[in-house]
C-alpha cells in the first residue's frame, strides 16, 4: 500500500501529460474524408474499449491469485478493478453510441461487439452488487472471485456467439490482425491516447485500491470498537 501511495501521483501526472499531448495531437490530426470530424471520437472510444477489457483481465488475474494464495491484498485489488472497468465500459458504450448516430444513422445496433460490451457492463454491475450483498467478508471475497472467473470464461463465448449471430461493426481499428488499417497521421494520436488511457486506468485502479483498503481498515476498527464496548459496558 505504501508503494502504491507513491506510485499513484506519478501515474496521475504522467497520465495528465499524455492526455494533454494526445489532445494536442487529436486537435491537429486530419479529418477522415468520409467520417469528417466525428472520427475524432475514436480517440476516446478505442482506448477505453481496450481498457474495459484490460481491467477485466486485471480483475481475473487478481481473483485467481486470491483463490490460490488467499492473500487479502489480491482481493482488494480485484474489488478495486471492477468499478474502474465498469467506468471504461460505460464510456465505450456512450462514445460508440454518439459516433454511431451520424455514422450508422442509429444510436444502437445489436451488433456483435456492442452486445458483448453491454453484457460486460451488466457483468461489472453484477459483480459490484454481489460484493455488497454478502456481509461475511471472506464469503463475499470468495464468491466475487469465482464470479469473476465465470465471467472471464463466458466473455469469449458471448463474443463469438454474438459474432456468429450478427455483425455490422467495422473491423477492429487496432490489432485486428495484420497491419493496422488506419493512416499514420491518425494512428499516432490513437497510440498516445491508448498509452494515456492505460495510465489513467492504472491511476484510477490505484486510487480505488487505496480507498477500498482504507475502508476495510475502518470497518475492522469499528468492529473492534463494538466488540470492546460489548465486553466492557
Amino acid at each position, binding site marked *: 500500500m505504501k508503494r502504491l501511495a507513491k506510485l499513484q501521483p506519478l501515474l496521475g501526472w504522467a497520465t495528465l501529460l499524455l492526455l494533454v499531448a494526445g489532445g494536442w495531437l487529436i486537435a491537429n490530426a486530419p479529418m477522415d474524408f468520409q467520417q469528417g470530424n466525428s472520427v475524432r471520437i475514436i480517440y476516446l472510444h478505442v482506448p477505453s474499449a481496450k481498457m474495459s477489457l484490460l481491467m477485466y483481465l486485471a480483475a481475473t488475474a487478481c481473483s485467481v491469485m486470491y*483463490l490460490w494464495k488467499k492473500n487479502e491484498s489480491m482481493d482488494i485489488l480485484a474489488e478495486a478493478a471492477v468499478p474502474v472497468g465498469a467506468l471504461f465500459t460505460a464510456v465505450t458504450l456512450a462514445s460508440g453510441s454518439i459516433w454511431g448516430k451520424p455514422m450508422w444513422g442509429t444510436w444502437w445496433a445489436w451488433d456483435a461487439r456492442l*452486445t458483448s460490451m453491454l*453484457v460486460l457492463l*451488466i*457483468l461489472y*454491475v*453484477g459483480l459490484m*452488487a*454481489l460484493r455488497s*450483498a*454478502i*456481509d*461475511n467478508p471472506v*464469503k463475499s471475497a*470468495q*464468491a466475487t*472471485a*469465482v*464470479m469473476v*472467473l*465465470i*465471467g472471464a*470464461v*463466458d466473455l469469449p*463465448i*458471448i463474443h*463469438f*456467439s*454474438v459474432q*456468429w*449471430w450478427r455483425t455490422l461493426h467495422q473491423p477492429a481499428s487496432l490489432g485486428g490482425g495484420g497491419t493496422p488499417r488506419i493512416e499514420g497521421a491518425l494512428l499516432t494520436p490513437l497510440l498516445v491516447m491508448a498509452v494515456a488511457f492505460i495510465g489513467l486506468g492504472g491511476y484510477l485502479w490505484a486510487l480505488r485500491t487505496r480507498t477500498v483498503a482504507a475502508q476495510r481498515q475502518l470497518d475492522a476498527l469499528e468492529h473492534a470498537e463494538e466488540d470492546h464496548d460489548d465486553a466492557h459496558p
Partner: protein
Amino acid sequence: MILHAAYRIAWKDVVGDFRRRSTLSSMLFFAIAALVVFQAAFEPDRKEAVKLLPGLIWVTVLFTSLVGLGRVFQAEEEDGAFEGLLLAPIPREAVFLGKWWGNLSLTALVELMLLPVMLVLFNVDAWAVLPAMFGVLLLGTLGFTALGVLLAALTQGARGRETLLALLLLPLAVPLLIAGVQATAALLGTGGEIAPWVRLILIFDVVYLSLAPWAFGWLVEE
C-alpha cells in the same frame, strides 16, 4: 463412489421436492402464467406463432429455471444443514454433482411437460419435431443448470438473493439463448442450419460442466 453419493443427494432433493416443497409445480405454473402473459402481449396468429415459438420456449425456460434455482439450497439453509452436507466424507465435487442432478431432473421434467402445452396453446403443428426440440432444450439445460446451481451456491447468504441470481445468470446465458433459439428455429423450419448452433450449445455445456464442480469447491472452502 462419487457418483453414488451424488445420486443419493439428487434423490433426496427430488423426492423431498415431490413430498413437501413442490418446486416442480411452482415452476410449471409459473411457466404457464408466463405463456398467458406472452399470448396477451403478442397475440400471435398461426404464422407468427411459429416464428415466435423458439424465442418463447427459451425465454420461458430461462425464467422458469430461476424459480427452481432460487430454491436449490433452500432445504440446506433452513436447518443449517449445508455444513452437514459439506462435512460428509465425500468430495465437494460429489455435493455439486448431486445438487446439479436434482435441479436438472426437476427442470427437465418441467420442460417435458411444458413443450406440448406450448404447442397446444400457441396452435403450432410441430409434433413431428417435438422429440428433437426437447433434445435441443435438454442439451442446453445441462450446461445452464450447472451454471445456475453454481451461481445459486455463490449467492448463498446474499441479500436480495433471487434478484442477484437473475442479474448474474441472465447475461451469462446469452450465448446459450442465441444458440438454443437458432437451433430450435432450424428444427421448426424458420431458421438456417442447425449444426453450428448445436455445436455452440455443446461448447457451452463442456465449458460449464468442466468448470462448475471445481469452482464450487473453491467457493465452499473455509
